[in-house]
């Protein structure tokens, strides 16, 4: 069972349906007892970092996420949920994240004013040559496309980067450290490639 954390951020319809579609049990809950009973935890999120970080803190679920991570349960953050796993974000200010992954969140640079920000659309995944492919991507191939919607990205996180994508520069598309995983893109909107990634996550723990 995967526990999808409901802290009032974003639309969880597709996420829930994608778990149902691949035949994996999932619950959406903001209740820590219910979530504690799950083998895996998923932290979703869209919108602004500061707002989401506040909501997570107000609901008291920030402590739960930290506990879940230290207990060794597989934890997956998606989009803004991934960004929250990092130490800090510089999205319209300077805000603390959960600090489960080393690195910070900064705006996608557009020095020549040639990029559209946010990046919206399908972009290819590239896997670092110098490390083995992460467990989420065991069935995903170099160059497979996934769906992104974001204006900020994780940087200073070379140790944890598990996939990159190219948008003006090389951007962090996914990161992992031990049992903590994050995808900047939306696996639940990335067709069969995305479903494979969710299936691989469900095979953990």
């Amino acid at each position, binding site marked *: 069972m995967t526990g999808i954390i409901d802290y009032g951020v974003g*639309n969880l*319809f*597709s996420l829930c*349906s*994608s778990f*149902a*579609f691949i035949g994996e049990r999932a619950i959406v809950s903001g209740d820590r007892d219910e979530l504690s009973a799950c083998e895996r935890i998923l932290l979703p999120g*869209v*919108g602004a970092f500061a707002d989401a970080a506040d909501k997570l803190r107000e609901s008291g679920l920030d402590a739960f996420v930290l506990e879940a991570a230290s207990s060794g349960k597989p934890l997956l953050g998606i989009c803004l949920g991934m960004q929250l796993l990092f130490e800090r974000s510089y999205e319209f200010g300077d805000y603390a994240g959960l600090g489960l992954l080393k690195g910070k969140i900064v705006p996608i640079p557009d020095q020549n004013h040639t990029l*559209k*920000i*946010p*990046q*919206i*659309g*399908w*972009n*290819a995944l590239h896997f670092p040559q110098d490390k083995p492919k992460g467990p989420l991507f065991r069935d995903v191939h170099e160059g497979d*496309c996934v*769906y*992104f*919607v974001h204006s900020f990205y994780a940087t200073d996180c070379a140790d944890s980067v598990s996939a990159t994508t*190219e*948008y003006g520069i090389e951007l962090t598309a996914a990161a992992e450290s031990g049992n903590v995983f994050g995808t900047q893109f939306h696996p*639940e*909107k*990335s*067709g*069969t490639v*995305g*479903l494979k990634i969710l299936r691989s996550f469900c095979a953990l723990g």
Partner: protein
Amino acid sequence: MITKRIIPCLDVRDGRVVKGTNFLGLRDVSSPVDLARYYSENGADELVFYDITASSDGRKLFTDILVETASTVFIPLTVGGGINTLADFDRVLKCGADKVSVNSGAIRNPSLIGEAAKRYGSQCVVLSVDIKRVDGTFHVFAKGGREDTGKDALEWIRFGLAEGAGELVINSIDTDGVKGGFDLPMLRAVCEIADVPVIASGGAGCAEDFVKLFQSIPGVDAGLAASIFHFGEVRIEDLKKLLASHNIPMRI
């Protein structure tokens, strides 16, 4: 590199796809759910559902099929038609839409764009504009292209972008249905002022029209069409292979 998107558009009335299709192997050719699944499995990068129902019974059927589609198709879903209030946004987002496209509703109530962008985020708000040349300038048309609002299209687009629209669908009434290709001059004018993704619509008659579109206007992010896909004149998989062979980045 980010890929260019190919987007089929499905007109839905009372829960059924309006224009017939002739795909082999489809159980029910006017089932939006079956058609959406077919497109998703055959290369579509995104789907647009356009609700042309007038009655509230039809609305209910529309949201039912939206729920069913969003439960089985995992690519971005955009919904348009009959979006006049934030409650309409709420209704379709809860049923699994990822983006909501506003057109006449925003013309009647321009603050809808900003209010929706604030509540749901810009990425959720698509401004769809029907444009036709009137005395040499681009005018915004309302009510499915039947009524000249007198508004200058480029000014309207600037306003929509400033309010927080996250994507633009530009439908040229001048080329729509003619099948002689996209309206390149109009799209070029829009791309000059747009800093968000631009989706070209209206005029696609063959695969080569998409090649011309993406080759001549790098600022266009996606091509949208209905009948050429529905009637099987152009298969999305073949179209994407052709585009890729012209070095246009595609998700194959």
